[in-house]
């Protein structure tokens, strides 16, 4: 039998269930507050302060750093970031849907195929990005193959283009799209597809009218899971994009680094955070709607 202080403690928490929950939550929440939330608040504060003479910030309040964002130079970067993120999402969707569909119908091959989809995800992102460099660079595999086949006579400029960044992001985030679509297709009641067939629907109509609409929650979740990290990408455009394909993430690094304009860098960070937050809220809604269905 247990000692009585333990019983008394349990009785205490039984009377105050919330206290028990908070006792469990406190250590983790404290850590996240100190090393995630507080830094963000400091960054937010920096974004409305004056620029320091050499680096850092000087006291005062201003919104000029947010206004500065309207400069065509920066708007162009924001625009590029947006379309690259959208294009990444679209490409991932087009590639992932058939993959997810085949896996969901693959019977006993299913687990092996799922493993193959997730496998690259466990390989270092940095190394996968480097692998793209090896493929795309001037003397790389793609160019030498093209020239070997006689399709091109000189190496194409493949690296340091928006296309290279796109390739890197799609390659990096594809599993995030495949898995939620697979989950929604796997849950799909096959009787519904059969019912549509008895009612006269040919293969394409079955897909368009039954399978696709019922997998939309998975599509939405996957799209957000790809879109959000693409928006904040730093490493991929840094290594594959070069100076001409700068995205917002690189702009942030640039302002804290060589440009030495910390408040502007902070302001760009929060512009980015704003869009990401919208994405997060959308994702939570999709998830809750799906859980309720």
């Amino acid at each position, binding site marked *: 039998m247990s000692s009585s202080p333990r019983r008394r403690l349990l009785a205490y928490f039984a009377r105050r269930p919330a206290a028990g929950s908070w006792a469990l939550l406190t250590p983790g929440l404290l850590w996240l507050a100190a090393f995630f939330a507080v830094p963000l608040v400091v960054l937010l504060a920096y974004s409305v302060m004056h620029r320091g003479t050499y680096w850092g910030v000087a006291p005062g309040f201003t919104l000029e750093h947010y206004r500065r964002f309207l400069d065509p130079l920066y708007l162009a970067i924001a625009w590029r970031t947006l379309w690259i993120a959208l294009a990444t999402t679209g490409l991932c969707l087009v590639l992932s849907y058939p993959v997810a569909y085949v896996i969901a119908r693959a019977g006993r091959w299913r687990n092996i195929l799922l493993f193959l989809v997730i496998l690259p995800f466990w390989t270092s992102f940095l190394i996968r990005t480097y692998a793209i460099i090896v493929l795309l660079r001037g003397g790389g595999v793609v160019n030498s193959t093209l020239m070997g086949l006689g399709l091109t006579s000189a190496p194409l400029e493949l690296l340091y283009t928006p296309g290279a960044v796109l390739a890197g992001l799609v390659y990096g985030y594809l599993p995030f799209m495949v898995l939620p679509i697979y989950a929604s297709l796997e849950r799909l009641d096959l009787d519904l597809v059969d019912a549509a067939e008895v009612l006269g629907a040919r293969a394409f109509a079955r897909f368009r009218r039954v399978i696709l609409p019922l997998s939309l929650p998975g599509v939405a979740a996957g799209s957000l899971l790809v879109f959000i990290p693409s928006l904040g990408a730093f490493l991929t455009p840094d290594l594959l994009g070069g100076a001409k394909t700068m995205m917002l993430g690189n702009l942030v690094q640039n302002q804290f680094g060589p440009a030495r304009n910390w408040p502007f860098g902070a302001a760009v*960070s929060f512009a980015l955070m704003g869009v990401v937050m919208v994405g997060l809220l959308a994702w939570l809604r999709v998830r809750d709607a799906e859980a309720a269905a």
Partner: protein
Amino acid sequence: MTRRLSPLLVALVGGIFLVLHLPVLVLVLYSFNSSRFAASWSGFTLHWYARLLERPDILRALRLSLTVATLSTLVATLLGTLLALGLSRRPFRGRRLIEGGLYLPIVTPEIVAGISLLILFVALRVPLGVGTVIVAHVAFTTPFVAVVVLARLRGMDRSLEEAALALGADEVTAFRRITLPLLAPGILAGALLAFTLSLDDFVITFFVAGPGSTTLPVLVYSMVRRGVEPTINAVSAVLVVLTTGTIALASRLGGTRGA
């Protein structure tokens, strides 16, 4: 019931799988290429692996990466599991907010998380080093552990715990003998995720690491920046084999427990 798939679709998906795995396969292949200039194959060699052994900085970085990943995983697994347990009990005011808030660190761009942490450390004059790297890794991996463990908890049959209580166990005993064993695969999965995320992280580490605390990704990054060279291929191949092996082993262990 399995329905037949159109061969065209299967071929298309096969092609996608091929493209998905081609880059890393090429990388591993070229780590055995005796030519310095990766594009042309000029024979098999282990030369680049031998070169690895002559590079104490690479070995040091690998050892540091493993140390950081191990320590931060231990702390993050503990904190994350406690968070999940706190959130899985009966509802209380603010629970949804906290749960939603857990996703914030997950979706925050790493560059923002890394730089904000850097300015905090600079403002507080904390010397950058292994300590700051571990602190940062715990902060960004804890929410992942919490989410994975929480999902497992939600999928668990709570009546098992109630059955234990009805059989005379108190809450602590019921947790230790029923909940914890059932939760173990989830905790293991969360820890594994934390470990690989930490081992893999470049962006956050890049900002909070000091001169003496170069992890392997940071070192590889600087090598890549300097230019493509076959030693990186060899490092990559070693890392690929290492992580894939860990995952295969872990999923086998997890599989036998019915995870």
